[in-house]
């Protein structure tokens, strides 16, 4: 626990966004995680991304499950909507919320424990439905809140703090996402916010399910020699392969790009994601190439990061299910609830 709070200070010449808000307006309560936790860096990156996108905090929704990572929704966007759900059930609650009002910006925050064990079923079905949300999976390979047992994301051969060796194969959320049809799949590292912040912005603007699997070291239980999710290990094997920038519609430069240098991907809102640092003609729109790339990098212990796969053309849940376009709270009551007679009529049609 902490005994201090971060003071709110308005400085002179502080940068503001298009809404006239400052970065600190996107902060939340003081983090109670361990000092040095990777999750805090991810939280700060999310706050910065929302700030830079000039999203009104009250037009954002934060949903999470249980765990250290799931606590972090309290630590950013203090003036937005949010719910901490039952362990592993965040995707269902998010799906329901989006069905009710798909005009808000949804961000789910979860961890490797919440998503890959108890919540695995929920997680994959949200992906295959292409629910329009950004899902941050803060991955540290352990159950931090219960003192460091291996999670389903722990690599084979990696050791726990006291030396026990993990003999089970890991579930890789990125491979899983590619397999079940997520339309925006990325891996990142809490230590590289130059990559992470633009990636979050792109994920928030992508229409459909976005997954960012963030390696986010646990300083208390998984930051030792033998860990493959420590700061030292991640910095050592880190390969920022694909850098994604979100360019809003207003700031687009209509220029011809050199192929292989920068690859622009048009988004539904008229904005654009531009991809940089592409190696050997790698095309993140090619799912097979993404799967191959992951496999290759896994062979060499390399941690490949960046936007590995994107499909901007796939319908999202709202469209596939032909749901009401207006948020439910904007529909007049009489229309929303046409009465018992109408219900009877409807039921008659099913007999």
């Amino acid at each position: 626990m902490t005994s201090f709070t971060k003071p709110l200070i308005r400085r002179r010449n502080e940068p503001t966004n298009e809404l006239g808000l400052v970065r600190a307006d996107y902060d939340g309560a003081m983090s109670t995680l361990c000092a040095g936790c990777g999750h805090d860096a991810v939280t700060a990156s999310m706050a910065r991304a929302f700030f830079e996108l000039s999203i009104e905090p009250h037009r954002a929704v934060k949903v999470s499950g249980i765990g250290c990572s799931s606590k972090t929704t309290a630590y950013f966007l203090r003036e937005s909507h949010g719910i901490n759900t039952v362990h592993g059930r965040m995707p269902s609650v998010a799906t329901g919320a989006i069905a009710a009002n798909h005009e808000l910006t949804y961000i789910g925050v979860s961890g490797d424990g919440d998503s890959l064990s108890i919540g695995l079923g929920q997680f994959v079905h949200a992906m295959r439905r292409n629910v329009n949300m950004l899902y941050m999976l803060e991955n540290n390979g352990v159950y931090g809140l219960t003192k460091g047992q291996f999670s389903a994301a722990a690599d084979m051969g990696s050791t726990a703090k006291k030396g026990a060796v993990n003999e089970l194969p890991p579930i890789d959320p990125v491979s899983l996402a590619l397999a079940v049809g997520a339309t925006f799949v990325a891996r990142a590292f809490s230590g590289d916010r130059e990559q992470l912040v633009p990636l979050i912005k792109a994920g928030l603007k992508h229409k459909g399910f976005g997954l960012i699997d963030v390696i986010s070291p646990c300083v208390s239980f998984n930051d030792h020699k033998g860990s493959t999710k420590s700061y030292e290990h991640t910095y050592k094997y880190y390969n920022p392969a694909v850098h994604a920038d979100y360019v809003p519609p207003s700031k687009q430069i209509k220029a011809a790009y050199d192929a292989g240098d920068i690859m622009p991907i048009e988004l539904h809102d008229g904005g654009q994601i531009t991809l940089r640092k592409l190696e050997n003609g790698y095309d993140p729109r090619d799912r097979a190439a993404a799967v191959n790339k992951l496999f290759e990098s896994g062979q060499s212990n390399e941690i490949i990061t960046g936007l590995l796969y994107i499909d901007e053309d796939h319908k999202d849940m709202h469209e596939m299910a032909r749901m009401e376009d207006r948020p439910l709270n904007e529909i007049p009551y009489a229309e929303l609830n046409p009465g018992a007679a109408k219900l009877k009529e409807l039921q008659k049609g099913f007999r």
Partner: protein
Amino acid sequence: MKPTNTRNPDYYHKVVDCQWACPAHTPVPQYIRLIAQGRYGDAYLLNRESNVFPGVLGRVCDRPCEPACRRGRLEDEPVAICRLKRVAADHREDITDKLPKKPAKTNGKKIALIGAGPASFTVANDLAPLGYECTIFEKLSEPGGLMRSNIPAFRLPEKVLSEELDCILDMGVELKLNSPIESMSALLEQDWDAVFVGTGAPRGKDLNLEGRWEDGVKDKIHIGIDWLESVAFEHTKAIGKKVLIIGVGNTAMDCCRTSLRLGAKNVKVMARKPRQFFKASVWELEDAEEENIEIMINHSPKAFVHKDGKLTGMVFELMQYEIDDTGRITDQKVTGETTIPCDDVILAIGQDNAFPWIEDDAGIELDKWQVPVVDETTFESTRKGVFFGGDSAFGPKNIIWAVEHGHQAAISIHKHCQGKMLTGRLPNEVDMAPTKMGMFEWRYSNSYDDAERRQMNHVELTKRFAELDVEVELGFTPEQIATEVERCLNCDIQTVFEPSLCEECDACIDICPVECLSMTEDADEAELRASLSVSEKIEGQDLYVSDALPLTKRVMIKDENVCLHCGLCAERCPTAAWDMQEALIQIHHADDQDKEM
């Protein structure tokens, strides 16, 4: 960029803006912490080591520290540093036992100090405890120099001044009053080992306009500093109903407020230029305006008007100025004239040095402005063994500068009397002391307090003018003290970074409430600054650049301009790569010059 060398004693000193700005380098945050603990006597003694007259300066200092205060860059108002100094002086217990003592025996070296002002008293304060026989010569009947003659008693009570002068005299310093030095040559022929001149800048400027020397006029036109002296020594006890003050510096403020206390009813301060060019300190202007003094801008004096052998008014030209974007006057023109009636005029338009008593053949070179040629480090004149300090050295400045000149001259005199090189002075040093007490516990109050500056309470206007010596400022109440001390950001508790411990988790960057940290690829200064959230450069404030970090070879950078010294980076750091350490800036005076270098 080259990694910052924090061992350079000036690096952390500069971060302590107030201490860096103070000519005598008073350790401000350190004494404010002592006040916060109720250790008023210790706070007073700490002040006294640097500035010798905490009681006086806590009331009338020019306060170069306050415009420099970091708090002023954060919000509008700096910490009331000067007022807190007065708190230490007002509330101190008996500290007589802790003051430097008269030594058991002297070292036989005789020092003549000319002029009993702050500079001479500082030299005596530094040298007498070392065994020097100091003799101060004063032409007036009371010591204190301008602190007594020019600063009115309603700003600086006589008792406060006398107490602080007496404790220096008690160190065995001889004071010869009513003893003007009329010949430097004669003095030098006597048996002095060193002579220090601290005679101030005693000659007020005159205004030779039409009508100045007419009978009935000339006696009604007063030179500001002379007039204040005459009031202080009770030679002048009254003034006319309508008074004009010419000039708008701090002396003018003292003149106008003193006039009100001698019976003037309508006092106007006449300024040639607009307000932004006023020389007076903002707070002195405010205090005068609180007493309903009218300050008239753009009035340039032209002539004195008299009728029937009596001063009746003054003619002013009405000025108009062209001012460019940088605030400089590029053009001016006269748009008309006006006559303002008055009974008396006080001239407060500056003062000059005057050394009629230094003979041309005394071996002391004066420059074309009749100011002595003085070395800026040693304060020695062109004659060996003769030193200058205070306003007499480089022209009118203020008390705190006079004190610093005194300290430096005392070092020189000490070296001179030992036959050592004057330039072999001890350099400043910095000692770092840990402040960590436990988890999230430091031995300073690190949490940011957003209280606004406390306003000094003043005696009611109706009670202020009855006597000349009713002190206007009442001092802080206990509640005001408790609040104001917490406004200090403790800039001397430094954020010390050890790159080899950093594991680049970004925790410090995220917790910093003013976003003054960043980790980035090493580059030139402009590029590094661009990676900060506020990249504006404030003059004199450095960018800290660490050695390369172990994991990625990036560097940690910190903008010293906005850091609050709140310690959150150190609290949040999992490896203690950031630590809060107190930088004790060692400023040496005469008493520790004999230490091994």
